């Protein structure tokens, strides 16, 4: 927007980081078509990967700092801010003193974050069943079709269908393998085409990689 009147040279200068980035992108992409890869491309790829701890570190510190400030301002969330900052501090101290392999550090991570993840992932089941019960009404033919398929899926992926007739799970598996499989492919492939179009827009400096 607002760049149509500029000369190509002006545009390139104004978008120098993007141009450099695009050159970097094609240097890296070339690795796919070369065997073995060329040294400069490999060095560039590795350097970017190796530098990633910096942004992660910066935003993690910002996250903790936000809660430190809340503590200092005695916000209403005080007890929770103390827990966040305190637990983060314990982890950092353990990690820096005993190393990242410290047993307590690993145990805390396993018994808080890994189990927390499993909890959130398991909560998906209830979060799906709830809207299914609320929403699934055959108001249109499409909805009726959707409900029919859901019943088929429930019968296929539990012993219910097999108990009624073996053809039911066979039908469900057929739908899953051949129709859902094709649908999944179309989804991904349209996304990949979209990604290549995005890169074309980037090459023509039409996609914003910086805010102004």
């Amino acid at each position, binding site marked *: 927007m607002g760049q149509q009147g500029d000369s190509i040279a002006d545009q390139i200068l104004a978008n120098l980081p993007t141009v450099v980035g695009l050159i970097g992108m094609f240097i890296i992409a070339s690795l796919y078509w070369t065997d073995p890869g060329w040294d400069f491309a490999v060095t560039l790829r590795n350097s970017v990967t190796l530098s990633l701890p910096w942004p992660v570190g910066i935003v993690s510190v910002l996250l903790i700092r936000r809660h430190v400030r809340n503590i200092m301002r005695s916000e209403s969330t005080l007890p929770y801010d103390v827990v966040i900052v305190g637990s983060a501090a314990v982890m950092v101290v353990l990690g820096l003193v005993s190393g990242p392999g410290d047993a307590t550090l690993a145990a805390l991570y396993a018994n808080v974050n890994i189990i927390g*993840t499993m909890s959130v992932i398991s909560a998906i089941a209830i*979060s799906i069943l*709830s809207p299914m019960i609320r929403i699934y009404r055959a108001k249109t033919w499409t909805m009726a079709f959707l409900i029919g398929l859901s019943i088929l899926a429930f019968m296929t992926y539990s012993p219910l269908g097999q108990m009624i007739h073996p053809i039911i799970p066979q039908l469900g598996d057929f739908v899953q393998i051949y129709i859902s499989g094709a649908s999944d492919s179309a989804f991904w492939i349209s996304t990949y085409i979209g990604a290549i179009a995005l890169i074309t827009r980037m090459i023509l400096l039409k996609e*914003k990689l910086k805010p102004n």
Partner: protein
Amino acid sequence: MSFQLVRVDILAVFIVSFGTLLVSAFVLKGTKLRQIPTVEASFEAVRVATEKGTPLLFDTGWTGANFWGHSSGLTTLAFVPATLELLKQISKEAAPLGVRIITGTTNAVYAMMSRDFMEAGYAEAGHPEAFVPEDINFYPDNTGLVMSDVDKIHRYNIGAAVMIGGHNQTSNIVIYEALHATGAMLVAGEIWPNDNSMAALVADYLSFAEENIAIGAYLSDDPVPKAILAGEDLIKAFLIGVVVIGGLLFGLGVL
């Protein structure tokens, strides 16, 4: 340094795809495009949040994940420019209305870029003072993101949410269920197909797959990005042709 050129067939497909899109950029200008529901709906969400007097949740989850280049990463990276531009435009819309935007992401680089784009949006709207850097929420993992989002939804009684990005193992539905509890308007477009199925279940407005990557082009007045979208149709039509005509030729033993 010597190396050999490999996978030449894919290289040819790659070059032809780019060529098609580049030519389209200049030839197909002015072609009429259909609507993408989430573009307009995102601004509607700002207005809904204004009416309800609550902040707007702008959650992008794993968008920008795999900056290190995992094989599945292109799609999460392709979402970055589109969602950032949307964030900026939403910020511009929200700033004069006094709506607070609370973001959530699990990607560090994306969190930093969000800060930059959101600040610019508030500045362009003439309200730089309204920008609160602490509303850019980075979480160390998806679990922290989901649990904190749910907490914020309840605590601020969130009235509208734009969730364009990606979540882990369809955990977006846990956030959606919390949004249902507060009666929030939900605009969603997810990266992964299984996450999209969750959005299809409950979202008020939904876009998916390449539609989400195209949002940046829809937000621009420039005809060239839209012409490139038109070029995408040529590639899709070609691939459909490969399946239909190629299928016949293979089946009849010609190929």
